[in-house]
């Protein structure tokens, strides 16, 4: 599966225009196609390797979830991204497709407050369970006071 095939497949299936940079294909998708795209990438493009998932806070424009999956045989890299929309925090979970998404989505929830629907065990992973706020959001100042140990 080379990038050109992937691009035509994506264009046909999801109706969006991917950006190609070498072996990396970047696809921006609407949020409701998120899990479908993951499953399709795994089954059709052979991107079985789940590399990482995270989010970016674009301030007023809201959160964007990004995810990188790879086909290790052909070297194809698929970079999926989806804008959740201003103020929105819900995103479909990729755990039913990739088991590796489990801890990555928990981390993303921990840091950005993105709520992944259908995640089997969505709770904080790095921060204490009773932490307040989501540190990697841009409105979370680095000197935000936090509650003392309880």
């Amino acid at each position, binding site marked *: 599966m080379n990038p050109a095939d992937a691009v035509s497949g994506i264009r046909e299936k999801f109706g969006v225009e991917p950006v190609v940079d070498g072996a990396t294909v970047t696809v921006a998708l609407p949020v409701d196609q998120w899990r479908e795209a993951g499953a399709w990438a795994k089954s059709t493009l052979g991107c079985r390797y789940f590399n990482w998932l995270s989010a970016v806070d674009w301030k007023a424009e809201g959160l964007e979830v990004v995810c990188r999956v790879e086909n290790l045989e052909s070297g194809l890299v698929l970079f999926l991204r989806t804008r959740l929309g201003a103020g929105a925090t819900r995103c479909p979970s990729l755990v039913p497709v990739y088991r590796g998404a489990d801890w990555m989505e928990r981390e993303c929830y921990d840091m950005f407050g993105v709520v992944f629907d259908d995640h089997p065990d969505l709770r904080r992973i790095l921060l204490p369970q009773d932490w307040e706020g989501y540190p*990697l959001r841009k409105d979370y100042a680095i000197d935000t006071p936090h509650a003392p140990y309880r």
Partner: protein
Amino acid sequence: MDPEARKVVEIGYGGNERLIMNMGPQHPSAHGVFRALLVLEGETVVAVDAVIGYLHRCHEKLGETLTYVQYPSIASKTDYVAAMTSELAYVSAVEKVGKFEVPKRAQYLRVLVAELQRVASHCLWLGTWCLDMGGALGGGATVFLYCMREREAILDLFEALTGARLLYGFHQIGGTRYDLPAGWAEKARRTVDVIEQRIGEYEAMLEDNAFFLIRTQGVGVVSRELAEDVGLSGPLIRGSGVEYDVRRAEPYSSYGDFDFKVPVETAGDCYARYRVRMQEFRESIKIVRQALDGLPEGAISSRPGVKSVGQVRVPKGEGYARVEGARGEVGCYVISDGGPKPYRMKWRGASFSNLAILPHIIPGHKVADVVAIMGSVDPVFGEVDR
């Protein structure tokens, strides 16, 4: 175990007399601060919940508040056992986004220190893993002390090169900060010669030992499919039969110039991971020799020194760069808004992804295997928690 933190991966077991044992956060074989809640039925683990985050410093937020000049030396504090490659991941990402040139000599120096670092890191892994299996008052301690002796020799080299033994600050945007001191290359050659010979001794000591073999073979098997699905990298995925090495998949820093093999084992158990790492020792030493032989002359940095930390600016853009650290793919995703600091920095730690395999493979094993599996994963908690 608080109810919210309770999540168990159940395996089929009909009994009900269970013991919940807390392994960590302070435990001799926790390799840092890691807490594993084991649900035991006798000696058999039926469920496990991994609790991490004790060493969390929010490196990603730190990365957004420190400038491109400041952060590389902080980056070394993620994977502090292989600090050279952690720094390299960050500076590579910034160089990719900012399209900085790196002189050939600097690229070779980066390869040189990265491979020495891999040898040092694997030394520590072998020692601590045997310590887990053999005990601090047994054969494990013997292997551990031998390995520390070897690691020490490499740390001496790094000390001569950078003045620091653990966290180096060797890399900077556009090159390296230090050049080789006089006589260093000769010393490095002698050191790797000694280490290469000692590796053979350890292999003889461990692989001819039936007890070592029964402790590692068939323990903690990770299938190829599971390895890809969870996103393992480094020796773990190569021990499961996937030939995936960033140095090959996406050669960075002139790795294309070097002749080396990517060792792959197919069994997927602790022994396969051990074999992969033992072969990597030799391959790394080979690369070190090649880098020393072929080291080009020239500048070590494409960028003049800065007078204030905010002087390096990166044009608007984003990029993901990855390097093959001792534990696997260490990657950094940087989004720049044109200022002296990244807008967003995502750190992909190899240990975080590798550690996520534990809940999938531990249930069904004995307590003693838990430490063997954990040691074979080789997590560094600075990188897991970041």
